[in-house]
């Protein structure tokens, strides 16, 4: 255990002083926060416009009740979640890959493995460092996002909203760790460092971009901007009646989407943040029941990636594939 902590500590110190990694993390943080800042500013403007309108009505002596605009502060995280989903996972791949290739490239593996280490200590140290790094980064990011919602958007957050943000953050941490660990495993299993990176990027391309895109393309409601059914002025009950004739097609589309860990992450976080309309303003129990499978698949992906990283980065495997 001591050697695992020693390895994790070294890894975190090394990463903290690595300018390239600092720039990557800063870029990701700025991108995500900026998207929330822009959405929060827009949110604030809409609220201000509504109040100005009310004031103008009152000044003109009009006492008509004007309904408040339907604005939900957590939905302002949509852009940020999408950046974490795509750019965050890409950076997670680079991080996991570089954790192994820098050891292989420097030749420090021999120095480490000539010490009395447990079989899984090396991989354990790297995994622990990744878990701590992503937990700290995402927690910090969500704290800044929450502050942005409160200070820039003047968003009226309540107790339940903080819990939803925390759940979205927990899903984000798990999602990013999965990508880093998969890249770490692939970098450990390949002799040429470039091969590991290419394999990880191909996997990223398929899971993050291609599969979700296929699912979106197959969604009939995505065929026309604004939605097919909305443009045909078909209400929800009739939409369901129409779609009941296409259950096989819908099941296939759903299965394709479910095969992507990115889609599992997106479905869960969009539900908790109310971005997915059917879960907006719903109690947590309802959302939990509706997204339990997504969370479970995400956890299965996490368990799989931890196992892959542990088994791939043992002394025997990694030294056999060292240059």
């Amino acid at each position, binding site marked *: 255990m*001591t*050697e695992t902590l*020693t*390895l994790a500590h*070294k890894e975190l*110190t*090394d990463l903290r*002083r*690595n300018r390239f990694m600092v720039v990557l993390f800063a870029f990701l943080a700025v991108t995500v926060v900026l998207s929330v800042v822009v959405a929060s500013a827009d949110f604030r403007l809409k609220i201000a416009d509504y109040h100005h309108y009310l004031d103008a009505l009152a000044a003109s002596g009009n006492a008509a009740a004007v309904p408040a605009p339907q604005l939900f502060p957590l939905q302002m995280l949509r852009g940020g979640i999408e950046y974490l989903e795509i750019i965050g996972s890409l950076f997670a791949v680079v991080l996991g890959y570089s954790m192994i290739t820098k050891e292989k490239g*420097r*030749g*420090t593996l*021999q*120095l*480490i*493995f*000539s*010490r*009395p*280490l447990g079989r899984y200590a090396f991989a354990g140290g790297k995994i622990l460092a990744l878990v701590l790094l992503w937990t700290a980064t995402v927690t910090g990011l969500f704290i800044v996002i929450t502050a942005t919602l409160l200070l820039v958007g003047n968003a009226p957050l309540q107790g339940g909203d903080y819990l939803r943000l925390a759940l979205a953050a927990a899903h984000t941490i798990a999602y990013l760790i999965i990508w880093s660990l998969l890249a770490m495993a692939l970098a450990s299993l390949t002799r040429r460092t470039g091969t590991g990176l290419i394999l990880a990027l191909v996997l990223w391309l398929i899971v993050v971009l291609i599969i979700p895109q296929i699912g979106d393309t197959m969604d009939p409601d995505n065929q026309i901007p604004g939605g097919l059914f909305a443009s045909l002025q078909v209400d929800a009950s009739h939409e369901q009646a129409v779609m009941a004739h296409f259950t096989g097609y819908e099941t296939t589309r759903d299965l394709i989407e479910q095969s992507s860990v990115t889609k599992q992450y997106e479905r869960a976080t969009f539900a908790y943040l109310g971005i997915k309309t059917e879960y907006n303003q719903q109690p947590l129990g309802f959302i939990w029941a509706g997204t339990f499978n997504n969370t479970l698949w995400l956890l299965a992906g996490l368990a799989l990636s931890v196992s892959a990283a542990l088994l791939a980065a043992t002394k*025997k495997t990694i*030294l056999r594939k060292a240059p």
Partner: protein
Amino acid sequence: MTDTAISTTALTKRYGSHQALNELTLSVPSGEIFGLLGHNGAGKTTIVNLLTTLMEPSSGTAVIGGHDIATASNQVRRSIGYLPENVQFYDNLTLAENLLFFARLSGVRAPGARIRDVLEFLDFTGRENHRMGTFSKGMRQRAGIAQAIVHNPSVLFLDEPTSGLDPQGVARLREIIIALNTDLGMTIFMNTHLLAEVTKTCTSIGILSSGTLIYQDSVAATLDSFPGQESLEDIYLHIEAGQRS
């Protein structure tokens, strides 16, 4: 009777159909500076990789400091230090941080005091908080020695320790290797190409040719046994040529 620091029995390593090491039987007494000579590809680095437990043998056994490399590999690792050829470090970490990392991995109980001793022994005082990325080749090699001895091992493996060093660096490293042996009592096993260095540094030698140990004796006995040859280089070439014919 002298203790044996390193002993191997029929140690063999095969890579597929290629026999890198052929039934090596070798014994190095404690307190020796043993120089292993051989042409490129003779199997010198393979031996070091096997004895430092970085690689598993195809067959045969080896015992370091009384511990079998196959059945007591962690005890072997506790009793050895290893300096690979072209040693590299974590350049974003300082020398002291690098040494602390390796000391902790080796299970050193009071690493701070031990690191101070090692830094003083290797003349690094005042440089401990400099990042490794700023070190010259010669300083890196000395830092390599520092990481290899930070846990006070009884046997030290050095793979081409003078590779790439300038003459001053070679001389400085030679002094250090001799001091490690005489002052700290470490048994040293080194691979090298530089035969002149072997004469100045080693107490005994072995010659490896295509994975087979073809000669082993003390340096003094070797020089006496070949009166017709002027230097160790001539003797080495003579023995190698005899093996080939």
